[in-house]
């Protein structure tokens, strides 16, 4: 088993990330956080990838763009990351640590540096064309910004559609562009980048639906098209209407496995995400239609094997989403609109049902540019056309220094894409250990002492091209604003964010001796950072900046009422001006980071995390409760895909024991934890020959890898009463040790979902289906005549595991589904085989199956002591007891407690390969903190006024982050821990806690300005 070893010679620390979807974005951010400069190349005109086209995301129903867009802004502003859009690599030479990549950029005919994304060009362009962002469901112009949140915020021109390129006279866009950004003479450019490692995040593409009978009809759409139909930024503005006649549909059919699990359509694998996507789309459709839409999902196996997915499935069922186990291979259009769907019901009878709209849940295929990359880099393709990797080392390819993440290696959902992206960056950082690291300058903001000076407020009003100016008369606004108290300077700019405007703004601040700045423009979410930097450059503390949003919150929503919009804009600016007058400077405190890590748990997750941290130069304590390392993997002897788990485990263990940066503590438990991110102190207790010994460790981060345990099905299905009833793990042991009873076994019945998807364990344990397939195949290989029946609910052989499902069928394993409400029963008769009764819904019969061996596919539970550990770490748990990540989609390994990271089965059951990848991801996230020598506390913190404090200690109780501690019986806020949530300030009965930003004076000032008069302040 190849393990990851740092390269001896690294010529270039730079990392090339190919693909700007969520995986590429994550990999780039992670590598940059580890001090490696990054070039991210994206073939399209904006980063964002497929996620940018999604409406909502499962299972949290977060708006996809709302969570993606901040990431896109973060990467676009990162000083170590260069984004190259419309760029592809043509050639790669060299070796790991020293690659030369020839890049080529096709022209977009717009200078990204000049374009502000104002959209004037698209407004005047006379040439329509189908909008690729909306998959042709709406029209856009030959020149346009790819989508409102695109990064870079710049238009691109489609030469095939442009009139000028077709020899007609038209220069509408060139004439109107206020930035002079359009350059029709732009040619393709080629250049070479030298990089140390390459991360491929090439993504996946929706499977074509063209061959599906009925797809040509307008009321038959793909799931990707349906996402656009649901989306507020889609062609219908978020109102669900069917395309044929624009009426509101009331019955939706979701057809699963279109282009998946279908060797004849070119995809024998399962695309993993579509079942959940359809559940989500059904729920969202129901929500936006105020409950009017009824959905039916036609599926083969409902695959909801991710964290929280089973609960989501139950939620959908509860909301009336009908689930029909029947594959549909055609829909018939009806003359009156809509379609007819023919299917088979649970009793094996053919049925026909009309629907207003059919959604084809299309699978995922390898990305468009993937084959070219594979050729260029000499990588292998697997049998399904994705990039070949080892099942245990998921992100490493056949070529050293070339890593892969996201759906380019296997169809996967967003959390897994993000996890593997972090893992790929982790491996890159390990390989490039000896490279010099670069750090983005971290400057303390200027402490300009202006607090006591009378306010001299500068107000900068933005036209935003015509976005604001079209509705609001900015000249009138400027005149009115000049009358506001404290305003010393007013000006309006076409684009306040453009480089020329910000340069002028900096000069104006200095020449006019401004001590507060208000910008009235768009959203602080996207632009506050830009203007804060201007203040800092002018020597003014960025705390003296206030933003008024007169675009989204005024000009855009009041387009038809310009007079009222002007009044509202003046109110908004007046509020910001009043707030600016009472603002205080930002003074974040910094504190040093202890560059050591604590890894809890010595299984595959803990071992992988420890190695990843240690390879990057961080001293790591590996703490394991048991008397040996290895965890759950010690009892794994086979994997479904083939590689030997014991060899893998031994490789990890040997590397850990050899590693000079790792201190292994076995038979050791964490008993106490104090401190915070950067400066944790933990007390561990070790069982030694001389009794229990305590030791204190100090470290900057914690990786939780405490694993889980097999559910013990005592008393169920005669387990524990009859020796012929085993768990899958026990069977695996018997197979491995060539148990003498096995050759005598003629009939085996396996029962799935024992301790999963039932009231006491309402989650899916993800692994048991694969485990049953694995053991069934092993038995068939050794004892070909053995008859094996697997009783299942949904066979969750997601991704490429599907091939093993088919293989097991090919070898004669029989699969019989059962209903949750009518589980099988096991009966024992003396000196006779066991009998397994299964109630067959299809035949409407109870069938008695003989069994020499009954094997229970038992679920996985959180490890013993998890609740206690969660309390010590202040990490939340899910209802099922798994450690809860900070955000299920985009922060899958961070806990809500800063500096504490999660991986492996402690987070949720997962396979060995998934565990190792997630451990690497957690470790690089943790390393991102350790690489920083100092951390800055947040600017939004709570402060306690000691004189006012009544010592009720409500704040100590309530703080969700443990930031308020007692010192001399007085509560004290530790600023480095405080996250500025404000819970303490809101609850404090004495009003003794003030927030550093958004405090009462700021709010009162704004309210007063809004109502134009004195307002009574509270407190009496």
């Amino acid at each position, binding site marked *: 088993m190849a393990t990851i070893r740092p390269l001896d010679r690294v010529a270039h620390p730079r990392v090339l990330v190919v693909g700007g979807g969520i995986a590429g974005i994550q990999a780039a951010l992670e590598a940059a956080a580890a001090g490696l400069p990054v070039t991210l190349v994206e073939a399209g005109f904006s980063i964002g990838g497929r996620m940018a086209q999604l409406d909502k995301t499962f299972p949290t129903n977060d708006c996809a763009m709302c969570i993606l867009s901040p990431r896109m802004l973060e990467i676009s502003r990162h000083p170590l990351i260069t984004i190259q859009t419309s760029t592809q690599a043509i050639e790669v030479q060299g070796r790991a640590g020293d690659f030369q990549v020839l890049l080529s950029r096709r022209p977009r005919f717009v200078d990204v540096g000049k374009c502000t994304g104002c959209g004037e060009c698209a407004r005047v362009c006379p040439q329509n064309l189908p909008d690729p962002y909306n998959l042709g469901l709406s029209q856009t112009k030959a020149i346009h910004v790819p989508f409102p949140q695109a990064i870079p915020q710049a238009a691109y021109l489609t030469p095939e559609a442009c009139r000028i390129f077709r020899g007609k006279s038209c220069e509408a866009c060139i004439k109107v562009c206020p930035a002079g950004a359009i350059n029709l003479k732009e040619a393709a450019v080629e250049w070479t980048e030298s990089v140390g490692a390459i991360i491929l995040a090439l993504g996946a593409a929706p499977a074509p639906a063209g061959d599906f009978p009925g797809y040509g009809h307008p009321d038959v759409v793909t799931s990707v098209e349906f996402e656009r139909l649901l989306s507020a930024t889609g062609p219908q503005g978020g109102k669900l209407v069917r395309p044929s006649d624009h009426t509101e549909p009331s019955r939706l059919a979701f057809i699963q496995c279109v282009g998946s699990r279908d060797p004849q359509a070119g995809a024998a694998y399962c695309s993993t995400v579509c079942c959940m996507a359809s559940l989500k789309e059904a729920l969202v459709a129901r929500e936006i239609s105020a409950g009017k839409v009824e959905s039916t999902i036609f599926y083969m196996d409902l695959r909801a094997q991710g964290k929280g997915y089973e609960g989501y499935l139950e939620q959908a069922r509860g909301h009336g989403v009908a689930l029909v186990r029947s594959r549909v291979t055609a829909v018939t259009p009806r003359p009156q609109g809509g379609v007819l769907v023919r299917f088979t019901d649970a009793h*094996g009878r053919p049925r026909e049902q009309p629907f207003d709209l059919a959604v084809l849940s299309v699978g995922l295929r390898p990305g468009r540019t993937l084959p070219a990359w594979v050729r260029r880099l000499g990588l292998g393709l697997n049998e399904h056309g994705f990039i070949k990797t080892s099942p245990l080392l998921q992100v490493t390819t056949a070529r050293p220094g070339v890593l892969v993440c996201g759906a380019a290696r296997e169809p996967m959902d967003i959390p897994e894409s993000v996890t593997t992206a972090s893992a790929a960056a982790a491996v890159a950082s390990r390989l490039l250990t000896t490279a010099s690291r670069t750090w983005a300058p971290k400057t303390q903001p200027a402490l300009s002492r202006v607090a006591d000076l009378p306010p001299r407020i500068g107000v900068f009003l933005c036209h935003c091209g015509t976005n604001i100016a079209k509705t609001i008369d900015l000249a009138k606004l400027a005149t009115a604003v000049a009358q506001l108290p404290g305003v010393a300077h007013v000006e309006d700019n076409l684009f306040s964010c453009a480089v020329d405007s910000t340069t002028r703004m900096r000069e104006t601040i200095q020449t006019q001796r401004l001590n507060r700045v208000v910008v009235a423009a768009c959203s602080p979410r996207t632009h506050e950072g830009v203007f804060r930097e201007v203040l800092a450059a002018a020597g003014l503390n960025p705390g003296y900046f206030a933003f008024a949003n007169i675009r989204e919150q005024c000009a855009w929503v009041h387009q038809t009422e310009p007079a009222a919009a002007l009044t509202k804009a003046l109110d908004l600016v007046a509020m910001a001006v009043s707030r600016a007058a009472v603002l205080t400077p930002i003074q974040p405190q910094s504190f040093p980071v202890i560059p050591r890590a604590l890894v809890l748990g010595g299984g595959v997750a803990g071992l992988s995390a420890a190695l990843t941290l240690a390879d990057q130069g961080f001293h790591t304590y590996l703490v394991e409760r048991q008397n040996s390392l290895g965890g759950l993997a010690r009892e794994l002897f086979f994997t479904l895909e083939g590689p030997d788990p014991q060899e893998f485990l031994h490789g990890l263990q040997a590397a850990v024991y050899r590693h000079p940066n790792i201190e292994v503590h076995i038979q050791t438990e964490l008993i106490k934890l104090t401190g915070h991110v950067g400066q944790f102190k933990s007390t561990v207790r070790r069982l030694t020959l001389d009794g229990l010994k305590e030791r204190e460790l100090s470290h900057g981060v914690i990786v939780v890898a405490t694993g889980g345990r097999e559910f013990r099905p005592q008393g169920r299905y005669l387990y524990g009463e009859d020796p012929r009833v085993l768990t899958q793990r026990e069977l695996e042991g018997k197979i491995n040790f060539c148990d003498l009873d096995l050759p005598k076994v003629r009939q085996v019945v396996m029962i799935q979902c024992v301790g999963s998807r039932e009231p006491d364990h309402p989650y899916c344990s993800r692994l048991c289906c694969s485990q049953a397939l694995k053991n069934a195949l092993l038995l068939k290989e050794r004892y070909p005549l053995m008859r094996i029946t697997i009783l299942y609910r949904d066979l969750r052989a997601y991704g490429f595991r599907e091939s093993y499902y088919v293989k097991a069928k090919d070898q004669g394993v029989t699969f019989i589904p059962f209903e949750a409400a009518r589980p099988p029963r096991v009966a024992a008769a003396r000196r006779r085989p066991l009998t397994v009764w299964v109630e067959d819904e299809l035949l409407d019969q109870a*069938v008695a199956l003989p069994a020499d061996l009954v094997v229970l596919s038992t679920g996985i539970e959180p490890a013993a002591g998890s609740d206690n550990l969660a309390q010590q770490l202040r990490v939340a748990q899910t209802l099922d007891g798994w450690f809860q990540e900070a955000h299920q989609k985009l922060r899958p390994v961070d806990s809500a407690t800063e500096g504490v990271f999660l991986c492996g089965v402690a987070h949720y059951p997962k396979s060995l390969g998934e565990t190792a990848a997630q451990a690497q991801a957690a470790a690089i996230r943790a390393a991102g903190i350790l690489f920083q020598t100092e951390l800055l506390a947040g600017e939004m913190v709570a402060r306690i006024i000691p004189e006012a404090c009544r010592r009720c200690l409500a704040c100590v109780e309530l703080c969700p982050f443990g930031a308020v501690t007692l010192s001399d019986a007085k509560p004290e806020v530790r600023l480095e821990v405080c996250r500025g949530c404000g819970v303490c300030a809101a609850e404090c009965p004495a009003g003794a806690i003030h927030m550093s930003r958004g405090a009462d004076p700021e709010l009162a000032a704004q309210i007063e300005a809004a109502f134009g008069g004195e307002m009574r302040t509270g407190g009496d």
Partner: protein
Amino acid sequence: MTETVNLQDLDPQFKDEVAAEPGCQHLWRCFACGVCTATCPVSELTPGFSPSQIIRQVLYGQRAALLSSPALWHCAGCARCSFQCPQDVRFLDIIQGLRHLALRDGFISPARAARLARGERLIQELRRRLIGEILSGPEELEVKDALARLAGEED
């Protein structure tokens, strides 16, 4: 549940036997997805005929129940099921195989099987003539009457 099937009614060899029939080797691969039944024109009209159920019975080994079932003889042989199956399970071949086994094992007499074959041919002949009649006859032709007339001529 209306019925129970006991161990002694199951023949574990049965599915191997069926799979050994010509064209039936992909029997194992069945996902029980139901496409065959949904596309079957006979299932639509014949309450007792469901390809999904027949495959399940084969997998259980319900030899006697299945081979003596009239369902076997209802298939019209259009092969839509075989074209649509994503797993390349050829249900038409399986039906042929089951009919062969039913005959071989005496669940149906050769004479009766011959009569069924003859009936099949007669229906085809009747169908051919009915279509000719509809196409060449008067616009207002009553299909039921025409069918009755043609069937009478057969005797």
